[in-house]
């Protein structure tokens, strides 16, 4: 098992493509996306029950190396500033296969 960083990102579904493009650019080995996440934060309740896609979040999980985390965070921060959302970083072990 190899030590990696778990990065969790919650953003508007409408911004999802931009976030994933950013991850691709940094070159992470992969990511997992769960759409239809609801939530509450500084911009109020996002209950996902709308006809429009405007109030729906997506959850992104990527396991990457320490250096990549730095790049992801640097690239992501201005975006989160503009459009809101959350990014958490934690430690994990990756079961290599």
């Amino acid at each position, binding site marked *: 098992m190899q030590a990696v960083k778990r990065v969790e990102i919650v953003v508007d579904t*409408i911004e999802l493509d931009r976030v994933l493009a950013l991850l691709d650019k940094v070159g992470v080995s992969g990511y997992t996306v769960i759409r239809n996440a609801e939530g509450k934060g500084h911009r109020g309740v996002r209950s996902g029950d709308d006809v429009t896609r405007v109030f729906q979040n997506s959850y992104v999980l990527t396991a990457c190396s320490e250096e990549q985390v730095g790049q992801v965070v640097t690239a992501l921060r201005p975006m989160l500033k503009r459009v809101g959302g959350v990014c958490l970083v934690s430690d994990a072990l990756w079961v290599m296969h």
Partner: protein
Amino acid sequence: MNVGIALENFLSPPILFFFLGLLAVLVRSDLEIPQPIAKFLSLYLMLAIGFRGGVELGHSAPGGQVLLTLAAAVAMAALVPLYCFWILRRRLDVYNAAAIAATYGSISAVTFVTATAFLDRAGIPYGGYMVAAMALMEAPAIVVAVILARFALSKPGRDGSASPAPEGSWSHLLRDAFFNSSVFLILGSLLVGVITGERGQATLHPFTNELFSGILCFFLLDMGLVAARRLKDLRTSGGFLLAFAIVVPLFNALLGIGVTLLLDLGTGDALLFTILCASASYIAVPAAMRLALPEANPGLALPLALAVTFPLNITLGMPLYLALIQSIGN
């Protein structure tokens, strides 16, 4: 205004189901329509209204008046955001003023569809090209509003602060605006209707025509739920915006009626043109604004469009506009 027609509209199944949805939220029932179903019903309505409009359009060669009406529709959709933006800037920052201006310049397809059902019940005919007018009116307001925002932000604003320019490339914005799923599906289905004509109609009639009222009722039930859930957001809107959401649609409707007089449209077409001017978008525009002007708060524009202007138009608006059009016509 003919009270009978208003009451009859009020007591028709689509409007009653809308109220049922409102009521469900007010009494805190756990009634809810799954999201994929709501999406499906709305796709169905776009496809069906587009196809039916196309079949109808195929019958008659589109003449000069049709092209003039389409041009007038686009012009209205581009004009409305201009004065809305100007009004809204009295109280709001550039971003939110632009976003709400775009909302009221663009249209609500469900309002249009509800109006066609209203005309069907009243036995008043309308032209298939009005469906094209609707689709063409979705996008222009988005573009105009973003231009307004950029222009306003490039000069030192009322608030004195230098704001960053709206995000995203123009090509991206234009694609989002004009190939938006509802614009695309309506125009595409319209084209299929034009091409396949009566033969296509023959096989699709049970789906696109017979089911239509039922699906509309089901969808309006959901609209009632969705609108009611947004009602409480109105508390933060303040009197200015509430007044805006009531007065501006009525003003736009009057303007629309004026244009239909100039164009000499028939009663049905005139009503549809008017309702398009009066309606506000809660699907295409909020999503486009979220991407182009993320600083704008969708929690401001959406409740106005969904919980004030939409109910206003489908309950009182439709019969009122019709009465005006008919009284002027006589």
